[in-house]
């Protein structure tokens, strides 16, 4: 049986796809930014913090990394509302994504921070810099530069994982796909289009991170060498 591909629904439905993609971008950019901050703070706590703090961060990271994002989202959306905290789908999505992103970022940033040789810290100490100043000015930027490829990959993975938030009715791209599919019965075409949009978004995000890297890593931009 030869299947007749029919993309005509696009003429009518393309705004819906655009809106879905736009919400995906909004959700994920916010989650990436917040998740990165959370992850970096936790990584600093893990490397420089006291025993209790290190254990707590360890628990957090292991818990998130060994449970599915879908279940985490359900706990935030359905679970929290049943104990009295009613949140919108979009807010729940962001919370779950930030918590998830934070755990993976912690591990990546931890590796970056630990790659900074202790002699750098000694030099900063001898110059009179406080711990906080050392972390901010001597450790963080080189650490981020070292693990930037891994960070970028993780960010893109988060964008793709955001499709799971369709399961709590956040009206992002995958949810739009499901809606259009149930309206038009053109499942194959719809999901192929959406897959293509996600691929395009992946590319867009990669390019954006590359550009951001060029902007914030001045030394790399000027000299072109790795740290």
């Amino acid at each position, binding site marked *: 049986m030869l299947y007749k591909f029919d993309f005509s629904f696009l003429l009518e439905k393309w705004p819906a796809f655009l809106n879905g993609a736009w919400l995906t971008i909004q959700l994920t950019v916010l989650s990436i930014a917040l998740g990165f901050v959370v992850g970096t703070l936790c990584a600093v706590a893990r490397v420089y913090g006291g025993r209790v703090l290190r254990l707590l961060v360890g628990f957090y990271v292991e818990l998130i990394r060994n449970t599915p994002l879908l279940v985490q989202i359900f706990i935030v959306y359905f679970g929290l509302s049943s104990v009295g905290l009613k949140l919108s789908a979009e807010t729940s999505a962001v919370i779950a994504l930030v918590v998830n992103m934070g755990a993976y970022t912690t591990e990546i940033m931890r590796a970056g921070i630990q790659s900074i040789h202790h002699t750098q810290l000694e030099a900063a100490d*001898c110059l009179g810099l406080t711990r906080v100043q050392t972390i901010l000015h001597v450790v963080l930027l080189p650490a981020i530069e070292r693990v930037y490829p891994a960070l970028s990959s993780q960010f893109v993975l988060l964008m793709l994982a955001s499709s799971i938030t369709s399961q709590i009715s956040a009206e992002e791209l995958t949810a739009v796909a499901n809606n259009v599919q149930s309206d038009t019965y053109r499942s194959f075409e719809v999901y192929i289009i959406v897959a293509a949009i996600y691929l395009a978004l992946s590319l867009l995000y990669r390019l954006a991170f590359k550009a951001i890297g060029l902007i914030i890593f001045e030394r790399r931009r000027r000299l072109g060498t790795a740290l």
Partner: protein
Amino acid sequence: MQAAPTTSATVVQVTGVVKEFGTLRVLDGVSLDVARGQTVAIVGRSGSGKSTLLRCIAGLETIQAGKIEICGHEVGRPGKAARAQLRHDVGMVFQGYNLFPHLTVERNITLALTLVKKQPKDEARKKAAEVLRLVGLTDKISSYPEQLSGGQQQRVAIARSLALSPQVMLFDEVTSALDPELTAEVLAVMEDLATRGMTMITVTHEMGFARKVANQVVFMHRGKIWESGPTSELFARPQTAEFKQFISSEL
């Protein structure tokens, strides 16, 4: 041993310092006085404890017994203020230069000036230019460390510590990681500093430098100060067999 009275002329006073790493005793009752404007060279074989002594004076290592005083302030006293005071008085230059690779030469120098001394940006930049002139690297102000040779990087490291106007500068085998051709430029800077009256303690293998520039030489062996005294006397009249052996092996 009774400590000598501290005068304003004594910048560094080390009394009976004991340092252990676990069960290993690296410093076994070391005492040393350094007067203002003096250059002291600490020499000895690897494992004699000379670098450890320097690091204790710099406050990078804790001591198990004894006392270290810098400009009358005791090193190793707990508290942020004490630590800040130590960092203010002591400048340290490392064997591996330890420049911050992601910052330009200028920013390497101005970082502590703006963050620690709270100087405004222009003042800090002026100071950076001044110290770079002293070490002869004015044209490298906007370069990154990786663009410089080892000798140049070490000179920048010296400039960086110098910019903070310390009372005493510590040098931990600063030429050992350099190719012989690059050693000379660093030693020249150090000699210049000494002539300008900086109080310096340097752990070094460069006997020529020690003879020429140091006022006092300290020979360490097995965690103790084996021999010490004015340079010319010490080299002319070595007292102990170990020091005699050391001199002959270094020549």
